[in-house]
C-alpha cells in the first residue's frame, strides 16, 4: 500500500525538488545581504580560470573528499596534527599485549618519568613539567602511514594557489581531507632520500608510539630504561629500588614491546640513533654547553694560527739575525770555523 502511494507521489516530489532549487537560486540572487564586491575579499586573489566557488558551505564544515564521519578520516586528522606538532615519537611494536599488561607498562613508564626533573625550554623560561604529557599510545598503522605521507608531501599553500582546487566563498579548500590533498599525495613522487621512504618499512603490524611533546633526552633516557633497557647505558631499575618493575605481568608485557625506531624532528632514527639521543648528557643545555666549548676552542685556534704566522716570521728573522751576527763575529775572529 505504502509502495503504491510513494510511487504515485514520486512525480510530485520530483517537481517539488525542482521548484525548490529554483526558489533557492532566486533567493541567492535577489535577497543576498552583501553584494558581490564586499562579500568575499578572499575571492579576489583567485587565480585566472579557477573553479567557481561552491555555495552553501559553512565554515565549520568545508567539503571533504573523504567521508568525514568515519573513524578513519578523523584518525588521519589526529595523526597529521600529531606528526606536525610532536617533535619526538618513538615507535614500538606491540605483539598481543593484554589490557592488564598495558596498564602495568603505563604504570611503570609513569613512575620512571615522574622522577625526571622538569626541563627548561629556553634559558630564563619557567621549567616545564613534561611527564604528564608523555603518552604511550597505540597507533593505527595504515592511517599513520597515510598521515605521514600527507605531512611530508602535501603543501596547502601550493594547493591554495592552484587553479584546479575547489573553492568556497571563504577561500580554497585545502584541509587534510580535501580533494586537493588527496590528489597531491597520490601524485607525489617518493624519493628514496625522503623521510617517508625511510620510515615506510616500519609501518608494518601493530604499532605503538611513545609521544614526547619536546625533544628532551632526559625523558627519552628515562623511558628507554623502562621500555627498552640496555645494560650499562639505560639500566633497568634495580629490584630493591622498584619492585614493581619485576612484577611478572609487567615483565611479560615488556617482552612483547619492541623498540623499532623513532622520528625525531622529522628525521628517522633507528634503535642506535634513539639511544644516541637518549644519551645526550644534560639535554639541550648540555648540547649548548658543548657548542659553546667548540666555538671557544675554534676562537682560540684562530688566534693562535693568526699569531703563529707572525710569530714564526719573527722567529725566522730573529734566527737569521743571530746567524748573521754569528757569521760576522766568526769572520772577525778568523776564517777557521767557516772553512772547517
Amino acid at each position, binding site marked *: 500500500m505504502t509502495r503504491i502511494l510513494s510511487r504515485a507521489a514520486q512525480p510530485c516530489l520530483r517537481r517539488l525538488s525542482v521548484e525548490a532549487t529554483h526558489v533557492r537560486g532566486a533567493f541567492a540572487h535577489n535577497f543576498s545581504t552583501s553584494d558581490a564586491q564586499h562579500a568575499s575579499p578572499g575571492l579576489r586573489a583567485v587565480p585566472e580560470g579557477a573553479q567557481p566557488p561552491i555555495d552553501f558551505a559553512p565554515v565549520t564544515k568545508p567539503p571533504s573528499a573523504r567521508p568525514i564521519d568515519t573513524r578513519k578520516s578523523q584518525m588521519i586528522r589526529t595523526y597529521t596534527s600529531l606528526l606536525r606538532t610532536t617533535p619526538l615519537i618513538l615507535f614500538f*611494536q606491540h605483539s*598481543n599485549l593484554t589490557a592488564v599488561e598495558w596498564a602495568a607498562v603505563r604504570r611503570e613508564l609513569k613512575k620512571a618519568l615522574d622522577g625526571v626533573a622538569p626541563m627548561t625550554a629556553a634559558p630564563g623560561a619557567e621549567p616545564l613539567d613534561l611527564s604528564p604529557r608523555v603518552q604511550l599510545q597505540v597507533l593505527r598503522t595504515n592511517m599513520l602511514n597515510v598521515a605521514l605521507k600527507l605531512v611530508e608531501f602535501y603543501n596547502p599553500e601550493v594547493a591554495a594557489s592552484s587553479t584546479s582546487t575547489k573553492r568556497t566563498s571563504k577561500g580554497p579548500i585545502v584541509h587534510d581531507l580535501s580533494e586537493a590533498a588527496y590528489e597531491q599525495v597520490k601524485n607525489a613522487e617518493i624519493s628514496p632520500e625522503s623521510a617517508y621512504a625511510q620510515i615506510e618499512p616500519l609501518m608494518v603490524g*601493530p604499532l605503538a608510539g611513545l609521544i614526547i611533546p619536546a625533544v628532551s633526552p632526559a625523558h627519552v633516557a628515562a623511558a628507554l630504561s623502562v621500555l627498552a633497557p640496555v645494560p650499562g647505558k639505560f639500566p633497568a631499575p634495580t629490584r630493591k629500588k622498584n619492585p614493581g618493575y619485576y612484577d611478572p605481568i609487567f615483565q611479560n608485557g615488556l617482552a612483547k614491546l619492541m623498540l623499532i625506531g623513532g622520528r625525531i624532528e622529522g628525521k628517522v632514527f633507528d634503535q642506535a640513533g634513539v639511544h644516541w639521543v637518549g644519551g645526550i648528557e644534560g639535554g639541550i643545555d648540555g648540547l649548548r654547553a658543548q657548542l659553546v666549548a667548540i666555538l671557544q676552542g675554534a676562537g682560540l685556534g684562530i688566534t693562535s694560527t693568526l699569531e703563529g704566522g707572525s710569530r714564526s716570521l719573527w722567529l725566522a728573522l730573529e734566527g737569521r739575525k743571530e746567524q748573521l751576527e754569528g757569521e760576522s763575529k766568526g769572520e772577525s775572529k778568523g776564517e777557521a770555523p767557516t772553512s772547517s
Partner: protein
Amino acid sequence: MITKFMTEVTAKFNPFSTCAKPARLFLTFLPPDVRMNGTAVHTSLLPRNSPESSSLKVKFKDGKEMDFNCSKINIKGLVEEVDRHSRQLQKAADLSE
C-alpha cells in the same frame, strides 16, 4: 597458527628493510600467553645499515628445527610451513592419547 608444539622462536630482523615484514608479523601471530606456556621467544634487531636479511628460527618439541630466510617467504608461507609440521605433531599426540 598452532603454537602448542613450539619450544623456541628466534626472530632476527632489521626493521628498516622490507624483508622484516614476515618476521615481525610472525611475532604478532603468537598468542599473548605463549611465553607462559613454555615457548621461549627471542628477538634481536639488526642495525639499520646491515645487509643481512631477516631470519626466523622455530624449534619444535620433537627436536625439529626450521630456519627461514624472510626475504624469500611471506607470512602466509611461513605460517603454512610451521603449521604443516605442527599438524603432524598434533596427529601423533592425538593417536597416542
